[in-house]
């Protein structure tokens, strides 16, 4: 069957909006970011090529190096948190036979997704307030000596930020794990039942090997999310006290829209981009390539 010109052009016509948006806001944008990183652009106005000056400055910038160390700690715990707790919850849910109970828990774990993240973050900020929140609890328990100005002391700020996510179950990751467990075919369980396997054995020998690809998706998503998101820290400590909770993405944002140094900020962004790509590739290698 011969296609008319019209039919041949139709796919491209359908794709036009996507391609235009992608060309401008993704690919031109990356080019623009890389270009800007070699200039001394301020708020996007005046700009002069300055070569590698920004990159050299970045690697001498003590704050940037501390940022990366903080980021490493935050990311490791965030990835653990994104995999372990949702997996734990969906495993327990899997062994609940009572249909209504199971569906109640499932719905309950999905609902928090609908509460704006910034709202949850701010509630935690109140809980860490020196005058009330956790300190009230400690005082009520007669442990007034343990109170801290949680987010404003160098010794506690970073750990408090990490704990904001603990052991909060991310609805999205929970759903992915839940789907993974339910996608395992029944035939795999038959042998286990014949052998009289315990629940732990079912988890160890049937579940974990079969949901590897789902775990991989969660690891990749939480890795990228943790490395590029900075809203949580921007809203709680702003990177302080000093720069004890600073992370690269937030530093970049502050330098760009606080100080107006677009050139330097873009260089930090490009370095961060390269790190993210390397880590994503490494995590894929580590967890094994399948598809």
């Amino acid at each position: 069957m011969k296609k008319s010109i019209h039919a041949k052009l139709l796919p491209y016509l359908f794709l036009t909006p996507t391609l235009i948006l992608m060309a401008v806001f993704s690919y031109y944008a990356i080019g623009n970011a890389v270009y800007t990183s070699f200039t001394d652009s301020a708020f996007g106005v005046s700009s002069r090529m300055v070569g590698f000056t920004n990159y050299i400055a970045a690697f001498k910038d003590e704050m940037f190096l501390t940022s990366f160390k903080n980021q490493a700690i935050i990311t490791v715990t965030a990835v653990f948190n994104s995999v372990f707790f949702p997996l734990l919850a969906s495993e327990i849910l899997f062994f609940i036979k009572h249909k209504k109970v199971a569906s109640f828990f499932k719905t309950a774990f999905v609902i928090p997704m609908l509460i704006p993240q910034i709202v949850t973050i701010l509630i935690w900020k109140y809980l860490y307030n020196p005058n009330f929140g956790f300190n009230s609890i400690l005082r009520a328990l007669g442990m007034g000596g343990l109170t801290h100005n949680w987010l404003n002391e160098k010794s506690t700020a970073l750990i408090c930020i990490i704990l904001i996510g603990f052991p909060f179950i991310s609805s999205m990751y929970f759903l992915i794990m839940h789907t993974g467990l339910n996608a395992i075919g029944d035939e795999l369980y038959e042998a286990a039942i014949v052998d009289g396997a315990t629940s732990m054995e079912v988890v160890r020998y049937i579940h974990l090997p079969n949901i590897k690809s789902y775990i991989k998706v969660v690891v990749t998503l939480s890795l990228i999310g943790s490395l590029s998101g900075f809203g949580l820290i921007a809203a709680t400590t702003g990177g302080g006290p000093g720069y004890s909770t600073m992370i690269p993405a937030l530093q970049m944002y502050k330098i760009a829209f606080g100080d107006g140094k677009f050139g330097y900020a873009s260089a930090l962004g490009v370095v961060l981009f390269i790190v993210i790509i390397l880590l994503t590739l490494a995590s894929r290698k580590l967890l094994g390539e399948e598809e």
Partner: protein
Amino acid sequence: MRSHRKIGVGYLLSRLLLLILLAATFFPVLMMINMSLKPNVMIVNDFLGLPEKIYWINFQKAFHFVIRPIFNSMFVCLISLILILIVVALSGYTFGRMEFKGRKFLYTLVLAVMMIPYTLLIIPSYNIVNGMHLLNTFWALIIPYVSGQQIFGIILAEAFYRSLPNDMFEAARIDGAGEIYAFAKIAVPLSKPILITVGITAVVAMYNDYIWPTVAITGGDEMKTFCQIVFNNAAGKGATDMGLIAAAFLIGTVPLLVATSSCLKYYVQGMMVGAVKG
């Protein structure tokens, strides 16, 4: 068949653990509800205590200062949502069901965008929007949102359209129907669950975003979005009455809950299709 044994201690412990996880997940929300119903003095003096008398005035006052930002957020989300669904359906269908030159290359370009961190794009997006003279207009939010949110949607929709059985489309073709008919009358109606999933994911992300609005909308408060106002509050600008702020949070959560709760079932289904694809 799954095992049917009762597990005794393990049975009780596992359920207890599940309840603890659930409680930890809901703890901030419960605290917020508690705060919103107390006057400021009570929050400071007796943070954990339940309100002696429900203090509705917080909600009355909060309503006045968040209603405008909430409408701004809803307007931006609605326009973006419509555009996203159109773009996702068109591109998802094209990649999933049409044969054309460069299909593989163009689809790889779409997939590659997933790797670009949002942070890297903030400065160039600002430059682009600034160049279009769109700063401090709602289009400064809408256009980048459509561009960013379409990617995940196209990937989900492509998998869905590709999985549709061929004979449905063959039958229409034998009847002499064109590609546009097949798209509009067969594919789109069938893809309702997946489009709902894409829509919810996008709306949740856009409604919750406060980083991009603080960059693109820097003028007066009358243009600001809900989460932007909340974020500004966190940064120490604006009201310091915590009961009032908590009430404002709760009011701002309602539109999202209402808009999505009716479609939650579809969302869960759609996520499953998407997760299998990975």
